[in-house]
Each structure stands twice: as C-alpha cells, then as structure tokens.
C-alpha cells in the first residue's frame, strides 16, 4: 500500500478544546477510505486538516512528502478536491455554471474560458450523471440531485483526491446508496476517495479502508472485513451488537442488540 497523503503526529484543536493529539494516518492511494465514529469524535476535523482548512498545532499533513501548508493554494487545489457539508449555492445559479466554478484553480487571472475547461466540466457532469440538469437552477433540484451537482463541481477540479464530509446526510436512503455507488465508481476510475460517513454498514459495504475514530484517536483501521467485530463496535460506538455478513456483499453488517431501554 502506498500513501501520498499522510498525517504525521498531528495535534488539532479549536481554541481550548483539543480534538486530536499526535494522530497519524496514511491514506491509501486509489482506495475508498471511510472515516467513521460517534459524533464529535474528530472525524470531520481530521478531514479539514487533510485539506488544509485547519492547521495542525503540531505535526503536519503531507502530500508527496511535503507539508500541505507549503503548497501554493491553487497547486494544492489541483490535487485535493473537497466537498464540505454545507456548501452554498448562489441564488439563481444554473447547474452548469456551478460545476464550472470547479475550474477556478486551473484558471489564471486573465484567462478566458478554455476548451480544456469546457471538456472538464462536460466530463464531470457526465461522471456525476447530471448532464440532463445542465440548464436547471440549482435551488429547484432535489437533495440527491443537488449533491451530485456539487460532486460534479469538485470533479471539474480534476483532482486525484476527492474528500467529502458526510456526503450522504440529508439524502433519502435510495439516494444515499446511489451516491456511495458513484463514489465507488470514481474510485474504480482511479481517484482516491476519502469520506466521513455516518452509517457504519454503508461504510463497510463501500469502503476499501475503514478508519474508526473515537475521542480524536484512530481506534482501528484496515479492510472492513478484517477489523470490524463486536468488540470494535463496542469500543467505538458503545453499542452492543452482533456482526453478520451482509447478505448482498458479504461485508460486515452491524446489527445492534439494543432493544428499547
């Protein structure tokens, strides 16, 4: 396993609240990595540190052996594409215009819209399955469509990395699976996908590499089938459960044993 993107002994804090201390993580290249854990375990904070939205107090996040903080903003933006939980769509913007904004890191101050930009946007929209929505105002779309449009925006950035913070929240169950299927396909096409996911069963089904966090620490990481057992789920989520093979994919499926109080 090779890893271009790594966190080395990073300490992360918001003001007085220390989120993680000396956390290290290697993100396997070309794999779908899912980060899971209970609320406030520091998983989103870790993701923010990976894309340089947050500067570690100690240690550093490195891409190709060089601290991400040392990259020029647009250079890093050509490597790491990120979709936060709460992107803002300007009022009245159309789908294609929103996707086009993903081209920002590739455009110089005076450059006009280039054929390469055009191609990247068309390709991104096809990959995310939103070509048919091109002329529609973003605010009129359903939650599932809108999320795919945002992913197309990040894809237009043409980055080898795709990092997403809880991309399935606010989606109904069908759209959750469709979106995860899209991410798996993007992984198959060669991208490295890193997503913070809420649902551990979905993470086990779709991810190649699972990172389980609690209290700012990585409790376990590896192939879901290798690391997920009842003890781990108890450790991470405080949830008694039995683990059965997913009848569809054979990956671990967590069935909580908790019934009422």
């Amino acid at each position: 396993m090779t890893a271009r993107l790594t966190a080395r002994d990073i300490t992360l804090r918001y003001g007085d609240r220390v989120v993680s201390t000396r956390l290290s993580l290697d993100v396997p290249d070309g794999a779908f990595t899912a980060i899971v854990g209970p609320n406030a375990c520091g998983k989103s904070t870790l993701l923010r540190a990976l894309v340089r939205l947050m500067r570690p107090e100690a240690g550093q996040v490195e891409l190709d052996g060089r601290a991400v903080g040392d990259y020029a903003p647009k250079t890093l933006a050509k490597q790491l594409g990120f979709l936060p939980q709460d992107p803002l769509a300007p009022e009245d913007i159309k789908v294609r215009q929103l996707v086009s904004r993903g081209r920002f890191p590739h455009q110089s101050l005076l450059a006009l819209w280039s054929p390469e930009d055009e191609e990247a946007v068309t390709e991104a929209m096809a990959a995310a399955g939103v070509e048919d929505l091109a002329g529609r105002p973003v605010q009129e779309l359903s939650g599932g469509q809108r999320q795919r449009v945002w992913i197309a925006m990040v894809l237009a950035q043409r980055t080898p990395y795709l990092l997403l913070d809880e991309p399935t929240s606010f989606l109904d169950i069908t759209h959750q699976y469709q979106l995860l299927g899209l991410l798996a396909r993007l992984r198959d096409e060669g991208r490295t996908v890193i997503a913070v996911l809420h649902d551990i069963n979905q993470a086990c089904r779709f991810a190649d590499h699972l990172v389980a966090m609690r209290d700012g620490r990585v409790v376990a990481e590896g192939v879901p089938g290798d690391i997920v057992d009842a003890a781990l789920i108890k450790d991470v989520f405080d949830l008694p459960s039995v683990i059965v093979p997913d009848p569809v994919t054979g990956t671990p499926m967590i069935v909580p044993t908790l019934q009422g109080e």
Partner: protein
Amino acid sequence: MTVAGRASGPAGAERTVAPQVGLLVGGLVLLTAVAVLSMGVGAHPVPPGDVVRALLDYQGTDNHVIVRDVRGPRALLAVAVGAALAVSGALIQTLARNPLAEPGILGVTAGAGFAITIGSALGLAAGQAGELGFAVIGSVIAALLVTAVGRRSPLRLVLTGVALTAVLSGVALGLRLMLPDVFDMYRFWSVGSLAAREQAPLALPVAAIVVSLAGALLLSRALNALALGENVAQTLGAGVGRVRAAALVLITLLCGAATAVAGPILFVGLIVPHLVRKPAAGSVPWLILYAMVLGPVLLLVADIGSRVLLPTGEVPVGIVTAFLGGPMLIWAVRRYGAGSL
C-alpha cells in the same frame, strides 16, 4: 452535446452565453443614449445631433462649448460615480452575503462627512479641492478602522460599520450644531450633487475609480469561488482572507472616491445590484459588469431629472436618486419576492 451559444466574455466569467452578452450590449446602447441626452438637457438645451458633433467634430460654437466644458465632464462624472457606487454596492453585498448591505456600511460615507465637518471647523476644507481631500482621508481612515476590527467575519464587519457610522455621524452632527458656518458648508456637500462638481480636480478620483473597476473585474472570479462558502473557496485555492481584503480595498476606493467628488448619493449602491441580480444569475462577473452599466444609467437619468424637475433651478441629484430608488426597491421586492432582499 448542444451548446446554445458561446461568446468570449470578460476574463472573470466562468462561462458566457449569448443572452447575457446581448443584455450587456443593450445596456451599453442605453447608456450611450442617456449620456447624449444628459449632455443636451439643461437651461440651454442642445439638440442630440449637436451633442454628437460637439464630441466628434468640435467647432467651438456656444453649444459645443457647453457640451465640451460643462455637460460633457458632468456626464463623465455621473458615469464614473454611478459605476463606482453600483459596483461597490455589488461587491459589499457579495462579500457581506447581505442584500441590504450598501457601501456606506463600511463607514466610508460617515467618515467622509466627519472629515469634512472637522476640516471646515478648522477652516481647512475651503474650496472643492480641500473638501475632496478631507473626504478622501475621512473615508479611507473610516474604512480602515472598520475592516481592522471587523474583517474576521461578514457579520462583525457590518456591525462595526454601523457602530462607527453612528459614532462619527453623532459627533459630526454635534459639531455642526455648535458651529453654524460649518453647518452651512456641510449642507451643500451632504445632499449629494453633480452640479458644478465638474470643475473640481477630478483626474485623481476618476482614475482611482477606473483602476478599481478593472480590479473588481479581475477579482470577480475569486468572488465567484467565495460565493460557494468559505470552505469551498479555500479548497478551490481562492485564499479567502486575501480575496476579502482586496474586495474591501476596492469598495473603499470606489465608494470613497465617489463620495468625495459627489457627496453621499444614496440608493445607487443598494438598488442597482438588486436590479441586475436576476440576469446575472449568480455570477459575480456579470453582476459587476451589469452594475457598471446600469449604475451610470441610473445616475445620468437622476441627473437629468435634477435639471428638469424644478423650473427655477436644480434639485440635487442625491435627492432624485432617493426618489427614484425608493419605488425601484419596492418594485424589485414585489417582482422578485422578498427572497431577493
């Protein structure tokens, strides 16, 4: 794949389409027509044909002298001030994510008024050059103060601007009430007018406006990224802090220069961005381009109105824009719903 229509647009546009270019061209035609009209209207009317001849083939007749030496510069001033106010309004609304923001919330207007009051109280702000100098200094210092305190978040910025405006206006008002001469002098500046301002030294403020307008267009693509939220902008490589700082500098220059030469003209900075928001469809470059055309149109129309409304003399243009702007704002709200506000 079908592409409806493409044309090369401004450097800042993410992707331009024919209807938007058409609208811009239409706006420019309208602007030209209104400018010619404004150079003809006044106590001594000049027919439009003569206006055009005065500009293209100067013969030195009375009409030509009026157009070239008085109304031409005045129209040019209206275009520069209108564009500056409208674009600074578009910038502050984009930056503050608040459709009710107007450039004055940075304290620029209050700072200029305060400085002019102080200057006249000390007997230094005599003449238009002195007034202009004090207005520039006042607006720049006020904007620096507000941005220094409030640059961390749009909300802090607005609150700081409002607070500083209240303090400066209060102190200045107190001074003016104590010193009647100062009050008299301030009165003329404070209504906002283009009348006789064309004789002031305008090269510097107009140059500052032109440079800042170009800067606004260059910055517009980064503002497009910023409009997607700070997180997205940062990971797109847009450097949120720097983009915001640059936008604040441009707003201060534009609004400060406009206020310095024409006094506080209300509503242009607030209303024009609203009027062009729909056709701009979420694109900051187009918003700025449209504002750059419609702001001058609105101010020229108001200036024409200021010359013809009263048979006996001129109504200051600041009062005309307020009368035009009020109904326009109500129209915009009714047309697009309160959501556009």
